[in-house]
């Protein structure tokens, strides 16, 4: 059955999962957005932990490299970075591969998205985690050192859990940023939520149906996150007195 012209379809039907609805496309976009946000955030977290420890305890060369990385990434707009990495980077990579006699490769947009946003996240998280580590009272680490705890065990068992309590509000902000930054990937044609919304509304001209729907979906991500983060924060601050009492 052919769909009637969009102007004759109700908003609910447009958003629905039926033949004439765009529901599946929107949910697919939402899923992609969440996957990219999760992937980028996790990658950023790994970079952030390594970067923070490197900046604090690394040698002079590592410190300089990390300083260059955080400065550059935080200075350039994410959109520009995405374009650079997607077009320039994959282009350069393929040039190199071809010159070495390999075949051209296609980097999937989802991997690009995760890597680009992960690098951005990594720069910001490095600073947030570094601040969190600096706020750990030195006595907490001295106690571990005095008992002969090896440095890696100390980082894992003492520094990171104590850092978490300090860094969580900042890390939570960055998670919300990560969910929204996924929208930037629309420019490279990746069908995340914003791109799916824009396609749907362009085809149906029902802008006032799809954009508020996308807004609601972003809001749901954000509210769910806030709820979860609250629980994590409560757990990370176990053993600490409430500053309000």
């Amino acid at each position: 059955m052919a769909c009637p012209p969009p102007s004759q379809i109700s908003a609910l039907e447009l958003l629905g999962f039926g033949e004439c609805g765009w529901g599946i496309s929107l949910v697919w976009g939402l899923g992609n957005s969440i996957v990219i946000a999760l992937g980028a955030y996790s990658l950023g977290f790994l970079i952030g932990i390594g970067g923070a420890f490197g900046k604090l305890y690394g040698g002079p060369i590592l410190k300089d490299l990390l300083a260059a990385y955080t400065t550059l990434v935080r200075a350039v707009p994410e959109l520009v970075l995405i374009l650079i990495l997607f077009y320039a980077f994959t282009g350069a990579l393929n040039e190199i591969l071809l010159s070495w006699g390999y075949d051209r490769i296609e980097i999937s947009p989802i991997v690009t998205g995760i890597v680009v946003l992960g690098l951005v996240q990594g720069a910001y998280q490095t600073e947030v985690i570094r601040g969190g580590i600096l706020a750990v009272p030195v006595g907490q680490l001295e106690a571990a050192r005095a008992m002969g705890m090896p440095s890696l065990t100390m980082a894992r068992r003492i520094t990171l859990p104590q850092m978490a309590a300090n860094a969580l509000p900042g890390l939570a902000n960055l998670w919300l940023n990560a969910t929204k930054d996924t929208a930037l990937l629309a420019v490279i044609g990746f069908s995340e939520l914003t791109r799916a919304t824009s396609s749907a509304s362009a085809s149906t001209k029902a802008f006032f149906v799809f954009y508020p729907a996308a807004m609601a979906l972003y809001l749901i991500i954000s509210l769910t996150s806030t709820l979860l983060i609250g629980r994590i924060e409560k757990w990370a601050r176990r053993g600490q007195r409430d500053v309000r009492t």
Partner: protein
Amino acid sequence: MRFLIRPNTAAIKPQPPSNQAPSTLLHNPDDKSVTPPASLPIYSLAKPIPGAPNLPKQRRDHMPDQGSTGASQPIAIRVSALRKSFGTHEVLKGVSLTAREGDVVAIIGGSGSGKSTMLRCVNFLETPSGGEIEIGGEKVAMRAEGTPSDRRQLERLRQSLGMVFQNFNLWTHKTVLENLIEVPVHVLKIPKAEAEARARQLLARVGLAEKEGAYPAFMSGGQQQRAAIARALAMNPKAMLFDEPTSALDPELVGEVLQVIKGLADEGRTMILVTHEMKFAREVASHVIYLHNGIIEEEGPPDQLFGAPKSDRLKQFLKTVG
């Protein structure tokens, strides 16, 4: 009155310290006068800490010379010609110390005299600028500029020293029990159940059996410090280092911590104690070192140092701290 310390604990009748079983010192059910007031926890010293050395406790009466338990005991900690500078400021100008097993060495001195720095150099929380440190007969490998050169050796030697800090430094994200088993389980690889059983014994020993699930931030300073002592003991250390263990405490909480430390001394534990509690140092130490401006101004057995100080500076110092 030789023992104790603070007005609120003065109700505890002192016992002559020599040749008494430790259990009667603080806890004798037949004698009401030695039972602490109900508000104070009772530390039963009848049960020694598992693994504690069982040395004769009449250390002081048997050491006319250097205040040591006797030259026959092996050396637990030796510090030789230790120097330490912060930038251009030389805090320690060549100080030495020998603690044989069972010795209690007290380091006293004014603010800025270098006493805490000296103690912290023993386990390399401060990196010495020169000199030698020997722990349990083993020299700590050092580079020329004083930094330790063998990380594994340092970790191993640190595990044999129990450190107690002025500010307790219990890990705030762990309960008291978790604090006690952290290093035994995750570094020394002792089975968790075994470590927990031992930790509970130690907590009972310092009067904190009911606090095992509490987080440090919700305990009094005295309780935190007793837990910190238990945490150090959980490593089964060969020697204890106390860095002004009562200086951060409210006056009425000092007594309970000193009682625990005294119990350890009576057990024959080797310890080095940096303290401001002169009466306590006199009571518990076998050897006292008076540090002034980074050098040892005077040292000797406590009765000599406190009873008949030779140096004018020490006389002056004892007058001020009263």
